[in-house]
């Protein structure tokens, strides 16, 4: 019985460490946003940090690191279908027949790049 309470006490300690890590990464997220990467790198960095934070919450608070196979299976299926959904949405957007107006196929960029864009104009 005392072994179990020792276990839970050390688990509680880990929760506090994770809390600290989450606060650190949150500060990092805000801090990094002041550095002026381009949009793509900015998104990647932000998402990476969010993924780290999310994994901490999922594996420790939600006990996922010691969960059962069936739960992993359900979650992996979910992630696969979510990613497929997002990827295919984006792919359908970019793959269009030649001559379609809004996509400047020559430069491989969308015409919107030629218009005033807040990201390039604004000085941070």
């Amino acid at each position, binding site marked *: 019985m005392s072994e179990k309470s020792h276990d839970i006490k050390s688990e509680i300690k880990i929760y506090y460490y994770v809390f600290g890590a989450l606060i650190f990464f949150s500060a990092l997220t805000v801090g990094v946003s002041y550095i002026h990467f381009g949009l793509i790198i900015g998104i990647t960095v932000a998402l990476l940090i969010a993924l780290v934070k999310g994994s901490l919450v999922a594996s420790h608070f939600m006990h996922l690191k010691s969960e059962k196979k069936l739960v992993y299976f359900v979650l992996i299926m979910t992630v696969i279908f979510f990613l497929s959904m997002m990827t295919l*949405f984006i792919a359908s957007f970019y*793959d269009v027949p030649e001559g379609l107006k809004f996509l400047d196929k020559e430069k491989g960029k969308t015409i919107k790049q030629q218009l005033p864009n807040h990201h390039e104009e604004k000085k941070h």
Partner: protein
Amino acid sequence: MDHAHHDSHLLPFWRKYIFSTDHKMIGFQYGFTALFFLLFGFGLMMLMRWQLAYPEQPVPFIGKFFSDDTMPGGVMLPEFYNQLGAMHGTIMVFLGIVPILVGAFGNFVIPLQVGAPDMAFPRLNMASYWLYFLGGVVMLISFFLPGGAASSGWTSYAPLSVIATSGQTFWIIGMAFLIQSSLLGALNIIVTIFQLRAKGLTFFRLPFFIWAQLVTAFLLVLAFPPLLAAAILQLMDRIAHTSFFMPSGLIVSGQPLEVSGGGSVLLWQHLFWFLAHPEVYVLILPAMGIIAEIIANNTRKPLWGYKSMVYSVVFLGFLSFIVWAHHMYLTGMGTVISAFFQATTMIISIPSVVILTALFISLWGGSIRFNVAMLFALAFLPMFGIGGLTGLPLGLATPDIHLHDTYYVIGHFHYIVAPGTIFAIFAGIYYWFPKATGRKMNEFFGHLHFWPSLIFMNGVFMPMFLQGLAGVSRRLYDGGAQYVYAQEVLHWNEFMSWSAWLLGLAQIPFIINFIISLFYGKKVESDNPWQATTLEWQTPTPPGHGNFLTEPVVYRGPYEYSVPNAPKDFVTQNDPIELEIK
């Protein structure tokens, strides 16, 4: 565990029949409600078919009961025709078929077939039913709004649906209720199947019906939420005047629309079809499950290729998530992405064919009993075959250019759902009626129901392929009359309408049979009148609260029919007898 004597009969009326948490009662609730909606949705279509057969003629007998907003002088307005069309689809799919397959058959049969006392979450089950009921009420009320019900197709494409009358808002709200109901119900089914299986009931001993319901439940859980997201976005567009789906520069009735613009019309289509494609597998998988049970039972043989069927249904479920844009070939997608969806769509036909073939081959060498359930099950096979095969030119992007949004599509999917799924539903009702009520339905009336239904189903839907190939578009109020190229196939409209009305008449023997057999049907002499192997037949009839008298233990697979050296031509799953394998 002596369940059958639980004092459920001491529950007050409203706890026993209205707010029941017993899966069998909830199954009945779903069943009766869904049968009503199926009939109602069918009625909507019979009304539409009058307009198609006799355009601009007053509807006889009942025309005078309709308001001037819908049918002045009994003549259908185009706006009303569109409402009938949109609501026919919505009601049949979401208020009829899915609730009866998953809510009624799923709830009633699954706990019994896995040897459980109830579903995993009985109160959640009750909540699911009432959410469905509320959704149905909201949908029905919408007919009485100024401007009438939703009229932008069951697909509710933007931007038309965003600027449509208030019926569309009710459609969205109704769908939100229905989606929640399905989600919670599917969750319940998955947990029940994984957690409450009887001892010895390993996965490859599960009846195919259970596998089909399990895959269906996963489809519902993972595919419905994006439609809920889309519904929220469309609601925002309609009520808060956002522009999720409203493109810039849209002109309506000569006036530019006062919205911020910048939205994507295709976003709605992607989100909608992300659900709606898996949804069609929700419509067929449980039906295949029902047919499999009935075929095994009435051929007195194990299913041929059970394992292939299981692998196929799982593979099909997985693939169904990545085929959806074959509904969007004509939206301006490029060749690469179209080729991707075409490939996945072609591949997904394979597991369907495997399942259908296995069911066909299961008939070979069987001692076939031609009761009414089996008649419907046998008819299902070629009818679903026609539906499936006619899907091939639709799944290929190039012929789809000609066939998209024509009557060919309507013919294709109706063959699958009408003489496909609905026949499976009828089969299931005739089959499980004795277990649910302790009485059999009348076989003669069953024949009166079956034969005309089979004939008239084909009468309604076969000519649609001809009209579609000739280029007649869907959702046309005049049935194609305005198009020069359609003139030669227009005469089929009258033929199809009469087939539809006669099909309606053919349901009367079923309705009479169903209601009268509930009270006066011939009582069954045993708990297992079909001499079936699966666990639901090893309970008292009808099963009491808790279902099984003693906790069932499973020793063998689900289709041990005609086992050599066995004392009878079937061995039930929970029969401990040890048989020598010769």
